[in-house]
């Protein structure tokens, strides 16, 4: 384990940023934290988390897949794929770190998504433990320990120091490169901080939310539950929950006519939208109830069914905070799971 004084953390950041792009939550002009590129003078935000999750680094909101140019009767296909450059994402919370595992299972299984794979390969994730989780946090529900975040390097902020521990080869390599700006440390302070965090986690209002009632093979049990009608009753059909979600992985592939050629791109899609999975014959989910059910069944039943029981939610609490009508996965779990 290594440590670096928080007062000298800029040296650490500068050292990382020397060789690659470094991103971290930085407060914007309006005081809200956004993952942005670090440069000298910028400070690491003290906010618990950002509105948009760091999945954007690996699975961007919009990305080009290919370009087409026509000349006479020929069409030229331009491959826009380029090897990603090395980058570091710093300050990722335990919940968001877990979300990368969930995305990996989608994008890195055959057929591998080369765009995503390239970014994963070149990205180093430095996580940080949550000293002050908030009321919307419920990562413990999905077996995530906010005191022991995953990622290539884990960090803890305590007693004016930042403690760093490498978890992977990539992490070890980076940490070795940072020896000049860190010093060796024992883990006593970190152990105490972990205890502290775990104690707080137990006190959180959502600490008792359990996902046990859900999982693979429960489609029949929940699909026709009459409660879906009331739960989805006031859903607006906007895409807020899906776009702030760190684990939502649906996308749409579209063509854009530039007047000179075609750009084929993909962008995040939302199962809450009426044109989601729209096919030539029409749509297979015609009511907001069905769309709403799809989202939560995917997180709680379909995803675990196909992925060794791992849930498709990490309990980051973004949808709890941002849904315009305050309907969210916790309410769904409590309503449906409560009676089974």
């Amino acid at each position, binding site marked *: 384990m290594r440590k670096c004084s928080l007062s000298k953390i800029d040296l650490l950041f500068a050292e990382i940023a020397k060789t690659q792009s470094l991103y971290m939550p930085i407060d914007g*002009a*309006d005081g*809200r934290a956004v993952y942005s590129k670090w440069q000298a003078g910028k400070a690491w935000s003290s906010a*618990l988390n950002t*509105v*948009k999750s760091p999945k954007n680094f690996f699975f961007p*909101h*919009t990305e080009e897949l290919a370009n087409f140019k026509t000349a006479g009767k020929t069409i030229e296909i331009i491959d826009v794929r380029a090897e990603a450059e090395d980058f570091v994402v710093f300050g990722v919370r335990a919940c968001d770190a877990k979300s990368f595992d969930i995305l990996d299972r989608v994008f890195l299984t055959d057929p591998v998504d080369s765009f995503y794979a390239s970014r994963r390969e070149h990205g180093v994730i430095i996580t940080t433990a949550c000293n*002050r*989780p*908030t*009321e*919307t946090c419920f990562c413990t529900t999905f077996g995530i320990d906010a005191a022991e975040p995953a990622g290539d390097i884990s960090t803890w902020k305590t007693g004016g120091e930042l403690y760093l521990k490498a978890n992977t080869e990539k992490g070890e390599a980076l940490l070795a490169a940072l020896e000049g700006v860190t010093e060796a440390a024992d883990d006593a302070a970190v152990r105490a901080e972990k205890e502290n965090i775990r104690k*707080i986690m137990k*006190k*959180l*209002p*959502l600490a008792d939310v359990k996902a046990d009632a859900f999982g693979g093979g429960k489609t029949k049990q929940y699909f026709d539950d009459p409660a879906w009608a*009331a739960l989805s*009753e*006031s859903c*607006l*059909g*906007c*895409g*807020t929950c*899906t*776009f*702030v979600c760190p684990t939502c992985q649906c996308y*749409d592939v*579209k063509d*854009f006519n530039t007047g000179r050629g075609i750009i084929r*791109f993909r*962008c*995040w*899609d*939302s199962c809450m*939208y*009426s*044109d989601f999975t*729209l096919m030539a014959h029409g749509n297979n989910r015609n009511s907001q109830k069905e769309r709403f059910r799809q989202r939560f069944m995917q997180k709680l039943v379909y995803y675990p069914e196909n992925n060794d029981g791992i849930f498709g939610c990490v309990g980051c609490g973004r949808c*709890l905070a*941002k849904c*315009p*009508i*305050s*309907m*969210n996965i*916790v*309410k769904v779990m409590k309503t449906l799971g409560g009676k089974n």
Partner: protein
Amino acid sequence: MQKITRDALIEKAAALLENGTVSAVLGWKRGEFDYDVTPAVFNSIDEMKEGFVWNDFCGANFSKYLVSKTKKAEGKILVFLKPCDTYSFNQLLTEHRFDREKVYAVGIPCEGMADIDKIREIAGDGISKIECGEKITVTTLYADEPVVIECEKVLEGRCESCKSKAHVAYDELMGDEGEVLDSNRFDEVARLEAMSAEERFAFWQNELSKCIRCNACRDICPACTCEKCVFGNPNSGVENKAISDSFEEKMFHIIRAFHVAGRCTDCGECSRVCPQNIPLHLLNRKFIKDINSFYGEYQAGAEVGSRAPLVNYTTEDLEPGEVFAKGE
């Protein structure tokens, strides 16, 4: 704090449900926390007693829900309307979007709603309990003592410049008749207008680039009741979920504001729900301000059946070229 109590509203609803005037109640439902409130339909008084809330977080405007709920309802629906909600209510009636006969509207006074983000700024994270009384008392996981906050300090932005405490539509009014206020709601628009074009461009470029195209502003908007939105229709040629280029966000927000120009009642729901806190209401207010100064004062929803300024004209209207001459 709100002058009328939750119990008084439940009592009113109970009486109306009991005598058969209404068959269901559209109201705010308690959530996981004291501040998260979901619009819901209550079918019985027991359901109301269990889940109904009325506090400083009941900002949701129910008018738009009437469009879908009245179609399904067998009897009348009881709806509680705050003053600003009644403007949207009238506007939707003007546009024949729901059947007035199927609604029983109870006007309730509103002292302004609280903004949870502002409370969080003062009290800190980890809010475990909020009590809405004379003042707002916030208990957090990290502070030893509850924090007591004056309601005025944490008012939602739209309530700080409340345009009216008067109900313009109701079947029954609880509390006193309010008055249309002399609000300062156009001050921020005027402040932007006074900037140079470069500054304005930088301001909006920064704000609109935050847009994640979630469409929450559109979906909550009581003026956006098209069955199929042009931006949600793959055949329209402009449908786009991507934030591919800053042009797309500008196009979306300009056109959306234009589509509701003259119909927007300035309820402020768009800015309330924006996950990125973009001050979208300023676009709408700009149109309202312009309409007022070019074509005479007009408040959408102030009365049922009024002709919106954009489907109206006079032969003496201002020329587009004169608009700028006037401003300079």
